[in-house]
């Protein structure tokens, strides 16, 4: 189907099902129950899952296929975000131009950075991209304040021109929308205690994730993708055969940058604010973590990694000592305090610590990331040895 083989088709269908049913799957616990804390099926987090999924899939096209580790991908995410907000401010509150232009702007920006950075490989390439990203961050945070809003960030305002929209009479800043459907509009369905939220913005981002995912599969399977893998395995040999790898690398870098820009555009479409810290090196590092955690060079891995990190950031960081005491209230007093004292460093503000420990565990025991974990389980279940190994990789 769609030029994909059977395995890839089923992978795409599986991802499509996951995206479509996420509001139900991510809310496994009934509303009001003690475990509802761990539900992730609310619009903001689901949007983040798919948007960072797109970001990580794009990053993986560069890192997974060519082995070039870019430490500056956040710069494209940020550039896309700023372009997106400007479209929402100047053109129209409809999100379509914002998403398109942010992808284009990030693409142009990555041509510039890629052209310079790709003259080097390995660690030098990483450092160059890191330098460019930090430079963009510093520029956005101070010198370019008229364009970027500086530290406060760029947001929509009441007196923006929005030349394609009619005059605004509501006295409130319009919310980003798709032909009248606001991104924050949701349909809430309450079934026997479970609350499912079907959000417009989430499904828009979800559809775009599927398109992005499909394109990524096609790139992975194309002769172009094969060439990129050849670069990863031995660039020198390729050069000796008389082949110029630079155009391939640049194309790959730009595609990857456009994915990041697309993610940035979607982010501002869901929440019309772009801040400079979106370009900081920590944001670049985050997408590296997502990719490694999920599985480098696999198709589905980065999406899973993105989901896991965002889950930790949003769910674990919100557990406070008060909640812990509630959960363990059934224990005798002294024991309760003891248990809470043990767990407390790992939740709330300690979520980085938990994530770090998990990251170490994955690197040590599952170098192939979550995808490897899935494969191991699948192999155990089916009892077969390793004919399934390539199921969702490569």
């Amino acid at each position, binding site marked *: 189907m769609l030029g994909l083989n059977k395995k890839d088709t089923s992978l795409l269908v599986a991802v499509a099902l996951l995206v479509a049913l996420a509001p139900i799957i991510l809310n496994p616990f009934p509303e009001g129950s003690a475990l509802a804390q761990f539900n992730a099926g609310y619009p903001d*987090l689901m949007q983040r899952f798919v948007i960072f999924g797109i970001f990580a899939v794009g990053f993986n096209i560069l890192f997974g296929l060519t082995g070039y580790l870019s430490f500056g991908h956040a710069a494209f995410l940020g550039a896309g975000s700023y372009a997106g907000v400007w479209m929402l401010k100047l053109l129209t509150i409809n999100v379509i131009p914002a998403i398109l232009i942010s992808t284009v702007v990030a693409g142009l920006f990555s041509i510039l950075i890629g052209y310079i950075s790709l003259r080097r490989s390995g660690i030098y390439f990483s450092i160059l991209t890191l330098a460019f990203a930090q430079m963009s961050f510093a520029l956005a945070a*101070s010198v370019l304040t008229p364009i970027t809003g500086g530290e*406060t960030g760029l947001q929509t305002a009441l007196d923006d021109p929005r030349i394609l929209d009619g005059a605004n009479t509501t006295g409130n800043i319009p919310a980003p929308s798709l032909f009248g459907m*606001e991104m*924050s509009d949701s349909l*809430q369905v309450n079934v026997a205690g479970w609350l499912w939220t079907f959000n417009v913005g989430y499904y828009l981002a979800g559809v775009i994730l599927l398109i992005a995912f499909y394109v990524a599969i096609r790139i992975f399977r194309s002769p172009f993708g094969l060439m990129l893998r050849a670069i990863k395995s031995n660039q020198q040999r390729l050069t000796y055969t008389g082949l110029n790898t630079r155009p391939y690398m640049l194309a790959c870098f730009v595609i990857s940058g456009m994915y990041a820009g697309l993610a940035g555009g979607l982010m501002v479409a869901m929440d019309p*604010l772009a801040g400079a*810290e979106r370009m900081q090196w920590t944001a670049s590092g985050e997408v590296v973590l997502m990719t490694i955690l999920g599985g480098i060079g696999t198709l589905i891995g980065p999406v899973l990694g993105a989901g896991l990190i965002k889950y930790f950031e949003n769910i674990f*960081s919100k557990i406070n000592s008060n909640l812990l005491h509630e959960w363990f209230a059934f224990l005798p007093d002294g024991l309760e305090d003891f248990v809470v004292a043990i767990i407390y460093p790992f939740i709330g503000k300690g979520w980085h610590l938990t994530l770090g420990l998990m990251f170490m565990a994955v690197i040590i025991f599952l170098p192939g990331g979550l995808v490897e974990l899935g494969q191991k389980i699948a192999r155990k279940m089916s009892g077969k040895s390793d004919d399934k190994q390539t199921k969702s990789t490569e």
Partner: protein
Amino acid sequence: MSKLDLTRRGVIKSGAVAGAGLALPTIFTASSAAAYVNEPTGSTVTLGFNVPQTGPYADEGADELRAYMLAVEHLNGEGDGGMLNTFSSKALKGNGILGKKVEYVTGDTQTKPDAARASARSMIEKDGAVMITGGSSSGVAVAVQALCQEAGIIFMAGLTHSNDTTGKDKKANGFRHFFNSYMSGAALAPILADRYGKDRKAYHLTADYNWGYTTEEAVRTSTEAMGWETVAAVKTPLAQTDFSSYVAPVLNSGADVLVLNHYGGNMVNSLTSAVQFGLRAAQANGKNFEIVVPLYSRLMAKGAGKNVAGIFGSTNWHWSLENVAGARYAGTNAFVKSFGEKYGFPPSQAAHTTYCQTLLYADACERAGTFNPCGVGQALEGFEFDGLGNGPTLYRAEDHQCFKDVLVVKGNENPTSDFDLLEIVDVTPAAAVTYDASIFGGELGSCNPGA
């Protein structure tokens, strides 16, 4: 993917589930029948405390959170009641808000607008918070305020000192109790002119972001009006930790006052640098060289240690205020007492402003008789109150900014304890720091109940 198994039992089961789903859906979209977003229907009401728990302002965030928990205790009628006893409005009865027990959720802003908004959105969408409060950076406050405006939630700003929060970026759903850069400048300038003379030459080092700009501008404008001259204003990166290269040229620039528009760790480092370069002991233009820090906090003074001795600055509130300046500032001692009993040390100004904000919100709900953001906003607009430690205070309707006396402080020369680091020099009356609401531009817009 597995094969599709159709059995009679399976079909009936899934049919029943689907039927139940269609039969009893309570469907409400953003534009449906509920009067406002997250209307509390049970016996509890949830507030969202969004503070930095990690990052450069984590100390302030931790103190804010302590104050929030104390405020919730007092609202629910536990503890000794703190400032509820001194607050001029008597609408709060210690039985929660409007009879509903107050519960709270917490989140980590990481002092990043993005993370702060993510955390606030999850509080609104997942936990059903009816009010968001917190933040200890103006960038975060402005970002979260805009989000709350969009979502139809009240935002009670925490520690944010930039003019923009209630100036250029003010919003109908956002309210600020803390003072701002303009007020700092207006309060400091007369004292500085009095102590240091009217013919000074100032050199500014300014943190390179929004808050730094507005503070520098406020201090420049008000000191220049007194006759001072500004020799140079140099911007320093926010992430800078070593300021020696910025401090070195100061002494030979012809200036005789150094103004450090820095906050938190920045200020601690730049001040230490300046002292190490011998600026305090130096002479310039035949006068003693002086250093000024426009925004002071006790936590910063603690970080800078002995270096702060004798250095002037302004602050929103200090725990010794009632003892020093008298009963006009009633509430201070009550708050310090209950905070001290619970945590073992006096509260910072960040803790004070967030505690007040929580009480003010709860009180506004009681007086309005509803949690509806529009009703609460109306109750807060133009509200005059007393007994929250700052003396008589006005919540101005035009920009949702509180107007109250501003404290001019200096680093204590002989501190008697770890907390006795600032000495109150003077209290500038609210009238002297009041400005026209329109000078910073921006529009409030209209209140948004979200539904």
